[in-house]
């Protein structure tokens, strides 16, 4: 079983509601689910879609071909009818579209009419659509009913009953009328969790002891802010919507200085405003985690679309020289654990860790059996109860590791002093050359080799001594992985995926994989192969071939496979 369902329509028509409800039904039924969203930067109108892929095996990317198209506007049909598989079907309401299609694979369903008849309101047309898709697939409606009961629990029995009736109406209509529908659905399995990249970062942060999140809303990072804000009560978190991103990062730095785990999140434009703060955190050695969800630039660019073009920008962000860690998770699961690692490293080494994602990963939903919570790390590196017992205290004490004791101001009669100016061990402004040199040594040269030891090498997926190596990073993971799966029958191909981007790991065996391969192909969602440039800078190795995409849309499995295949035929 490997089906794709696309819900297309104008913004504001309920595409997201239908898409999310269906995805949750499928995950609850125990299927593996992958979804991705394509939307315009507007509240109403335009053309948007929500694509869902379901299978009984793990799925990590979208396909180019679809099985069911739920068309809420005419544009959906114009643009996406051609994506239908030979036995694919379109679900539409001729009264919405003011057009009737006389094709056997088009199911005309009176969404509004059924919503009014069974639910008493046009709003429930979305529920009818959900029921209809379940009916077309031939799934049992029980899981859908369960989910409706759970979703509307707080809204009372009347709302639940109205939704159940409309869902059933849609379900029955499709099941009875779609005579050509011949989908084969697997049996139920253990329910899967369904999580987006943004939610995974939020959950990872909370599970790492996040206490403070300040941000200015910016697509596609806002989902992190929303998720954290939903959970403030259970986990003692203060969230603050700052007046701008400069304030957001400075507030987070202030909170961290005062003794709590703090984070901010933004996208490229907002990060531009934060850059002086990145440098400030470095000079004051204040632990900080930043989520940077990329979208295509320059400037406002394509606000709701995806790109990986801020890698070198993030790497070089901040005036002066200082250590920094950059993670680029490949999936929500990695985002969850790497956010945990980000907090641990930020606190341990008193540095900034950037979690670099993009719109594609931020908004995509992946499904999992479970997250292993026992592997989460939580160590409190700050001096709390024992602070008063110290004989003396200097915030920026020179040490073997470069890591100075991080005291909580107010917890002791010792003073915690720090400065954005170059400073002495106590934290007071200095100008002398000797202290300056020792401070650079402490912040940079002593810490960096230790940080490097913490970084995991890239993941080699596929055959262990490949002829062909696909090199990618961050959100390219799921797509490239499926391409390798599909090509590994015929070719000795593997993927080298980087999610701990910087610094490069101490262990560098992976370079030999590249050197020994006949062909290396870098795949990046940017125009200038930024990661390949980073590899060359750090290792001297030049990746020979590049596949770049910078139209703001993610690859489907077929699209990437075709691009890779061009190189393989030349071998």
């Amino acid at each position, binding site marked *: 079983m490997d089906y794709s369902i696309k819900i297309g329509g104008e913004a504001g028509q309920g595409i997201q509601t239908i898409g999310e409800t269906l995805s949750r039904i499928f*995950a609850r039924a125990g299927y593996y689910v992958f979804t991705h969203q394509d939307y315009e930067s507007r509240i109403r109108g335009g053309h948007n879609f929500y694509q869902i892929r379901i299978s009984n095996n793990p799925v990590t990317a979208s396909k180019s071909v679809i099985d069911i198209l739920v068309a809420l506007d005419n544009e959906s049909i114009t643009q996406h009818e051609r994506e239908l598989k030979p036995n694919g079907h379109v679900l539409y309401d001729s009264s919405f579209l003011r057009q009737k299609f006389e094709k056997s694979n088009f199911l005309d369903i009176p969404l509004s009419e059924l919503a009014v008849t069974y639910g008493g309101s046009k709003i429930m047309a979305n529920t009818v659509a959900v029921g209809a898709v379940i009916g077309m697939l031939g799934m049992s409606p029980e899981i859908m009913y369960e989910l409706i009961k759970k979703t509307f629990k707080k809204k009372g029995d009347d709302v639940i009953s109205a939704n159940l009736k409309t869902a059933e109406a849609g379900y029955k209509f499709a099941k009875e009328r779609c005579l050509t529908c011949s989908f084969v659905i697997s049996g139920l399995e253990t*329910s*899967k*969790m*369904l*999580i987006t990249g943004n939610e995974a970062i939020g*959950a990872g942060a*909370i*599970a*790492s*002891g996040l*206490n*403070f999140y*300040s941000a200015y809303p910016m697509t596609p990072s806002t989902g992190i802010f929303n998720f954290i804000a939903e959970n*403030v*009560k*259970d*986990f*003692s*978190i*203060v969230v*603050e919507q*700052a007046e*701008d991103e*400069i*304030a*957001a*990062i*400075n*507030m987070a*730095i*202030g*909170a*961290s*200085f*005062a*003794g*709590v785990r703090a984070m901010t999140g933004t996208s490229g434009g907002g990060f531009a405003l934060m850059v*002086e*703060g990145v440098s*400030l955190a470095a000079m*004051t050695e204040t632990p900080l985690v930043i989520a940077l969800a990329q979208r295509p630039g320059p400037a406002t660019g394509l606000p709701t679309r995806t790109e990986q073009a801020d890698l070198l920008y993030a790497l070089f962000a901040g005036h002066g020289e200082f250590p920094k860690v950059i993670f680029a998770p490949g999936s929500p699961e990695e985002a969850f654990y790497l956010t945990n690692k980000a907090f641990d490293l930020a606190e341990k080494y008193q540095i900034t860790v950037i979690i670099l994602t993009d719109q594609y990963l931020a908004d995509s939903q992946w499904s999992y059996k479970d*997250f292993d*919570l026992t592997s*989460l790390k939580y160590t409190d590196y700050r001096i709390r109860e024992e602070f008063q017992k110290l004989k003396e205290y200097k915030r920026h004490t020179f040490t073997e590791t470069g890591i100075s004791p991080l005291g*909580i*101001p*107010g917890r*002791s*009669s*010792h*003073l*915690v*002093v*720090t*400065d*954005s*100016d170059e400073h002495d061990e106590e*934290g007071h*402004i200095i100008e002398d050359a000797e202290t300056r040199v020792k401070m650079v040594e402490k912040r940079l040269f002593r810490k960096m080799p230790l940080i490097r030891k913490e970084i995991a090498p890239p993941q080699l997926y596929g055959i262990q001594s490949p002829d062909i190596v696909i090199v990618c990073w961050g959100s390219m993971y799921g797509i490239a992985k499926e391409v390798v799966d599909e090509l590994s029958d015929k070719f000795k191909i593997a993927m080298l995926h980087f999610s701990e981007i910087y610094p490069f790991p101490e262990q560098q065996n992976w370079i030999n994989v590249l050197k020994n391969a006949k062909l290396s192909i870098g795949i990046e969602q940017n125009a200038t192969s930024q990661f390949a440039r980073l590899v060359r800078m750090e290792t001297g190795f030049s990746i020979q071939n590049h596949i770049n995409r910078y139209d703001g849309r993610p690859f489907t499995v077929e699209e990437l496979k075709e691009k890779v295949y061009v190189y393989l035929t030349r071998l």
Partner: protein
Amino acid sequence: MSTLQDYSGQKPAWCPGCGNFSILKAFNEAMAELGLNPHEFVIVSGIGQAGKFPHYTRCNTFNGLHGRTLPVATGIKLANHKLKVFAVAGDGDCYGEGGNHLIHAIRRNIDVKLFIHNNQIYGLTKGQASPTSMKGMITKTQPFGVFSEQFNPLAMAVALNCSFVARGFAGDMEHLKALIKEAVTHRGFSLIDILQPCVSFNKINTFEWYRQRVYRLSENYDPFDRAKAFEKSLEWGDSIPIGVVYKTSRPVFEEQIPVIKEKPLVEQKLAFEKIKSLIGKFY
């Protein structure tokens, strides 16, 4: 209990005769008289001559970036509202570079005390106009004189319903000390704009210039009358009032956050047992 000696910090690098010395003295005496020990408060400062202030007293210090004192102070206060949090900045620092933060700190009414060393000039960069420089002032970078309207921090603060608005004068140390003490004991965001002559670069607004104009608000002045306060805040020229111009009682920002009602954020532990149910929400 701390004595004045306990607030003795690094040797100041200010110019001899700088107005900042009396601000420092007023501050230290105010702290000693209030019984606030150095470790019980944090000073967040920016960049400029005022930014060096915390090094010259003794306290927990975050000497951050130009213009960014208030966001850092806000973060500290939200993380630990038991700490007294003061922000010290200059006119260029807070009214220029950090103007947006000032507006929003006033709106929030976070319990931070802001002391502005207002010398109507950029001192550290050697004499350019600041937002509070008077119209017509000629400097190296304003060769035809300042064209822009002089920024009026008090009028803006009153317009934003700032919970405590005052003006002090470095040449009236006792009065300034009383203002600082009143601001520290006030609940809510407090702004003291301190007129502080720059002896090196501002040849217009000198000690003498201020002395001829500055007068203390009368005891009959009612700082709770907002319209009157706005009127008073517009008074500038031949006579310049000092004292508490406006005061009001507004809900304090951090007191409205349920999460930190019981105890400060910094004292709260991660609820490990709840992580499982957090993940459970994704099923």
